[in-house]
């Protein structure tokens, strides 16, 4: 290890400051004794004790000593570095030293507060102080890393989370690229009928926002597009986006929809209509889609499959014609400073629970199918009917917790399904007043403003609530009453009896799941996702928007199941986090980073896949590895892993930690035959 910037170790002049913290420390630790003892360490120039080191007088003491006594390193033994490391680094800097020439010994939280044994506490304090001294002499000056923030932002996912974030940022004058992989933005909210608990029409509140996105001068909307690659780091990301061919030229198309009308072929719409309705082969997912341009589904298009048809092109009234069968995917490279991921959720595949009969018993529906059915713009124009599309059900059962709160599938609670199951009950009461509704639930989870009141309303509307998780749904009738019905078998746990409830229709409320590709997405964006596939936030309470990777933020259901109000709050919060970075222009990053001594690297590549952030690159030409400083988060995993020992973790170097270990064990050395502590 070469020390180029610091004086040779023996010339270091360390100042040691032991804090009483009123009596918090001195009650148990012999502060004076420790201070005096520390003078014996050959590196120590001066050792003092003081009542309150963090007070301005305490800080001045340090500054003065640096200036007057020519101190080169500072040790403060007081509280946790999580408390005052910043304070004393500043004092060190004010004294004229690099702020990293400082080390803190925690003799309060880790010592005086955990024992009443004065002798032991004093001994431990000495060890901690000595360790800090032995460490600090190896400290190197470090500079915080300034990073300029590109003011453009990428938002991935155009659900209500992405839309909200995009509008917030764009309204503040920042440019946004909004990438959505479906032909239209809107996400799941666009599929819903009414939204709980106030029952506003989903389209009525969403459409205006979608239109705003469409017209906003600061938003570049890229639908039918996907991110393929992300390079760079906070402030300077380069993102590669594939804009899939629509086969419709956006510049010419007026969105008149004649092509859709004229296309002679229809297929079942598995995405937007959740399989409940059909769409043409050239289509817009729904009438209010944004953007308005249709897209050709090449897999089903007769022209693409068989080479004839072209009806859409024939009838397109624009000049020049807007249909272009030769169109190709476009690859775009975007430069952005920050990224917000708002990729939302998927629904649990209810076929994984065969005893609920979905796919086998025709009148078992999923919640999303029911939403489409209840939607006035949906396939049945809002009529609630069985699969035959004629018969109104006389009895409906709604099954809660399908795939949620279940160790066999997902352990977590999906949070929104109790509420929307109540909403469904209400919609049925409203449209089919004579129909009986049974909600089978384990616990009714309605925490939220106005939510419990909504539950209360449903109780009064006459919904039959059965507390019990449905065991199975069958068409195996055992009595006359059950003949021709779906039988919901469940224990009514409040009376302790198994019941068989014959109904005409069953609605399953499946778990909210992470997107099936969320692992890939998290790797693409070099951040983490949890076991269930939801993106991991930096802190579950105090930083639910940021991720462990600087410059990448998350919002909405991609972070965990949530309803629209929570999603909107996160979308706006993510936008404000990005906005504050943009307004700073340049941010300083902690210099705790790894670096590789290229000359000594053996090129074994072991470190390459150690790094959780993929911050280590192998340079083929030179046959060595290199740390991309801006991506490195300073965990030190690679440092510990390198068999050649050529990676240095700044501020946590091997020599610093090894010296700290020895300093810590100062009182044990004489027990050992061989004196350790040789420089490595």
């Amino acid at each position, binding site marked *: 290890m070469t020390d180029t910037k610091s004086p040779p170790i023996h010339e270091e002049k360390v100042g040691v400051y032991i804090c009483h913290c009123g009596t918090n420390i001195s009650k148990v630790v012999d502060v004076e004794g420790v201070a005096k003892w520390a003078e014996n360490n050959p590196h120590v120039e001066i050792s003092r004790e003081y009542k309150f080191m963090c007070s301005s007088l305490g800080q001045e003491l340090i500054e003065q000593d640096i200036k007057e006594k020519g101190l080169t390193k500072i040790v403060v033994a007081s509280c946790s570095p999580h408390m005052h490391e910043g304070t004393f680094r500043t004092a060190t800097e004010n004294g004229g030293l690099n702020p990293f020439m400082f080390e803190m010994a925690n003799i309060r939280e880790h010592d005086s507060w*955990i024992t009443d044994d004065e002798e*032991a506490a004093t001994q*431990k304090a000495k060890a901690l102080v000595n360790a800090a001294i032995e460490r600090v002499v190896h400290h190197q000056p470090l500079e915080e890393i300034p990073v300029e923030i590109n003011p453009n932002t990428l938002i991935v996912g155009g659900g209500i989370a992405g839309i909200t974030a995009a509008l917030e940022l764009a309204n503040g004058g920042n440019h946004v690229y909004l990438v959505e992989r479906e032909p239209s933005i809107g996400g799941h909210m666009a599929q819903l009928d009414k939204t709980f608990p106030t029952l506003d029409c989903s389209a009525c509140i969403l459409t205006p926002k979608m239109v705003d996105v469409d017209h906003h001068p600061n938003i570049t909307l890229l639908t039918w597009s996907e991110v393929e690659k992300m390079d760079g780091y906070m402030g300077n990301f380069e993102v590669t986006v594939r804009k899939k061919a629509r086969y419709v030229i956006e510049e010419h198309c007026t969105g008149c929809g004649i092509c859709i009308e004229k296309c002679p072929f229809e297929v079942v719409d598995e995405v937007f209509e959740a399989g409940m309705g059909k769409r043409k082969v050239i289509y817009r997912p729904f009438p209010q889609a944004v953007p308005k341009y249709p897209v050709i589904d090449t897999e089903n298009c007769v022209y693409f499959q068989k080479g004839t048809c072209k009806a859409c092109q024939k009838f397109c009234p624009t000049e020049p014609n807007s249909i272009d069968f030769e169109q190709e995917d476009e690859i775009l490279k975007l430069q952005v400073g920050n990224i917000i991921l708002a990729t939302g959720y998927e629904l649990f595949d209810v076929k994984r629970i065969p005893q609920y009969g979905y796919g086998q018993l025709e009148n078992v529906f999923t919640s999303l199918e029911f939403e489409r059915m209840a939607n006035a713009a949906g396939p049945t124009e809002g009529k609630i009917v069985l699969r035959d599309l004629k018969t109104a059900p006389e009895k409906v059962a709604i099954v809660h917790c399908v795939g949620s709160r279940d160790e066999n599938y997902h352990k977590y609670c999906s949070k929104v399904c109790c509420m929307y199951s109540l909403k469904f009950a209400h919609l049925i009461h409203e449209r089919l007043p004579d129909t009986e509704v049974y909600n089978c639930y384990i616990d009714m989870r309605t925490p939220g403003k106005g939510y419990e009141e909504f539950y209360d309303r449903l109780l009064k509307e006459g919904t039959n609530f059965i507390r019990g998780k449905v065991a199975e749904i069958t068409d195996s009738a055992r009595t006359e009453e059950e003949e021709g019905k779906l039988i919901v078998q469940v224990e009514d746990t409040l009376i302790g009896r198994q019941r068989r409830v014959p109904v005409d229709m069953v609605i399953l409320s499946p778990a909210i799941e992470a997107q099936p590709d969320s692992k890939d997405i998290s790797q693409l964006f070099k951040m983490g996702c*949890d076991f269930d596939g939801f993106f991991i936030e930096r802190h579950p309470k105090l930083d639910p928007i940021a991720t462990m990777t600087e410059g990448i933020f998350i919002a909405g259901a991609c972070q965990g199941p949530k309803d629209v109000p929570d999603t909107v709050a996160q979308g706006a919060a993510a936008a404000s986090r990005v906005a504050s970075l943009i307004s700073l222009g340049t941010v300083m990053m902690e210099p705790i980073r790894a670096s590789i001594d290229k000359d000594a690297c053996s090129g074994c590549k072991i470190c390459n896949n150690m790094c959780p952030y993929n911050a280590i690159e192998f340079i083929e030409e030179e046959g060595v590895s290199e740390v991309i400083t801006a991506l490195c988060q*300073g*965990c030190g*995993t690679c440092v510990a892993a390198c068999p050649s020992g050529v990676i240095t973790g700044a501020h*946590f170097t091997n020599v610093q930690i090894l010296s700290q270990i020895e300093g810590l*064990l100062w009182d044990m050395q004489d027990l050992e*035959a061989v004196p350790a502590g040789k420089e490595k």
Partner: protein
Amino acid sequence: MSDQFEPIIVGFLCNWCSYRAADLAGTARIKYAPNLRPIRVMCSGRVDPQFVLQALRSGADGVLIAGCHPGECHYVNGNIKALRRFLLLKKTLSQWGIEDERVQLLWASASEGIFLAEKVNKMTEEIRALGPLHWHDKVLGGNGAIPIPVKEV
């Protein structure tokens, strides 16, 4: 201090979880064995086996490595790498006759102050029962050769 043997345990505590757990134990004034001497590392994944060996060599009777629970690592999965390294290291240590109790790995989140304190107490008791390590007699047989640090495979 009483006359009984007081083992010295060097603790490598991860900055995000276990170090904070130790802070919390202090803030909550939980009383536990002062035998643990903590060193802060950014991540349990930073704990190089040579640190553990150095601590034992320099007179520690035990080493505690503590990090975030699996799945909660601040750096995605550094703790899993620590675990892997730890298991390898244990193999070597047991070949040298070093008892299992002396080197332990622990998951403690920032809120688990009491848990950490209890673990430190337990470990202190366990090592107290074993007695001092006497590394040089035990491992080197007095010949001064330095064992090769265990590396990732």
